[in-house]
């Protein structure tokens, strides 16, 4: 007969305990350093090896390269680079395969918009997304 009384005692004890709620969004939520947020892309590092587009499980990365404007140098430079965040699952595989760390994760994660079109991020947006960049990739 005392079973439920024990439960009542437990909840009464909890009444005065400190709440564990995070105060997000009033206070920013601190994520650990390895957190996988929205990618940052630095075009100057990219060698257009196409590995990120190939490894992407949802095929959300599209890129095109063009030949180097300086005819002396070999290789390609990046022309367009788009990530479709409607289908990106932030799985970390693109940053894992990138040999030059041109694409890296950041700790930014707020992506909500009023239109789906805005989830289609281009090279410039990804380049500008350069805060809270992850240290180890």
């Amino acid at each position, binding site marked *: 007969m005392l079973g439920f009384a024990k439960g009542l005692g437990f909840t009464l004890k909890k009444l005065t305990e400190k709440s564990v709620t995070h105060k997000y969004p009033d206070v920013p939520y601190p*994520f650990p350093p390895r957190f996988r947020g929205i990618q940052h892309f630095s075009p100057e590092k990219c060698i257009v090896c196409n590995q990120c587009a190939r*490894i992407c*499980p949802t095929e959300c990365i599209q890129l095109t390269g063009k030949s180097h404007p300086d005819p002396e140098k070999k290789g390609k430079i990046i022309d367009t680079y788009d990530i479709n965040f409607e289908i990106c699952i932030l799985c*970390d595989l693109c940053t894992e395969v990138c040999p030059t760390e041109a694409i890296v994760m950041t700790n930014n994660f707020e992506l909500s918009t009023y239109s789906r079109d805005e989830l289609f991020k281009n090279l410039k947006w990804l380049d500008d997304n350069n805060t809270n960049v992850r240290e180890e990739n």
Partner: protein
Amino acid sequence: MNLSLPEELTGKTGLRTEEMILNVGPQHPSTHGVFRLVAKIDGETIKEAIPVMGYLHRGTEKLAENLTYTQIIPYTDRLDYLASMTNNYVFCHAVETMMGLEIPDRAEYLRVIVMELQRIASHFVWWGTYLLDIGAIGPFLYAFRDRETIIELFAELSGARLTYNYMRIGGVKWDAPPGWIDKVSEFVQYMKKELDNYHRLVSGNEIFVNRLTGVGTYSREMALDYSLSGVMLRCTGEKWDLRKDEPYSIYDRFDFDVPTSTDGDCMARYHLRLEEIVQSLRIVEQAVAQFPKDGEIMGKVPRVIRPPAGETFVRIEAPRGELGVYIASQGKDKPWRMKLRRPSFVNLQILPDLLRGENISNMIAILGSIDIVVGEVDA
């Protein structure tokens, strides 16, 4: 003139009653997602219940045929989204078995630690949501507070809170960050004490005990016939746990018990799941103590993963039961066929049998005690 109706219409009472079709779900609060149950009821008694599945079908098995082996790992996260780590593991384990890869010790320990923590986290969610189904709102929040600790540990380790994509073929992606192992053992010590509070809050409550004892009972034979696994099988007295009976990874290095019960009812399943948390804590504690000081976290893996032609089936003990992966390879970098044995799906098959003749208020108690995750049922 004889006005009485035939016996099959009136039953014993002599009153004519009508059967009614009750549609439970797919938007019912207690079907844990988008599961649907069509129940034919007579009064409050269920005559027949037909589970309708597939609302969350994403075709993972078919998708896998067009993905390289590494690309499939994030998809396995999304099967049983409460136990992503075990899903990661079983897939990597299958490919590693095919290729005969050696896994470094440190990686194996990390895998075991995260898998057991995942089992604990998964059982917390079950505990909380089951009590929510039964009508108690408090336990849900206490369970999620403790689960949050595990989730934060995982976020620190892998960078994600739910879909970890942590394991790789041949090892794990990240090494434990400094101080992580200490945090794990701190959590284990805390949780050992905190579990008593779980029992204090719920296990002794008379309403709760009366509600579950003797509800949803089935025999060992029936469980075996339906090929149930995990707690659903062990609650009938069958001592079968793949971690003990077919040790994979490094489970043979740990000392733990396989709790069983012979009652076969919802109460037995409730106690077994809580007891499994204790055993998982024991494993984590030992794994943390034995954790190698240094070492590799990735074995020697070819640059492109191409398992030799052939097929393999591996199975592990996931939080919900036996989770199996079958892979048929033709020596390419993509599997020719992947098939998953999903414990939620298999365990759910017994539901129509259990519900026949039950009261509607037991429906939720029985469905909840099976512990399904619709992502896994529908794959």
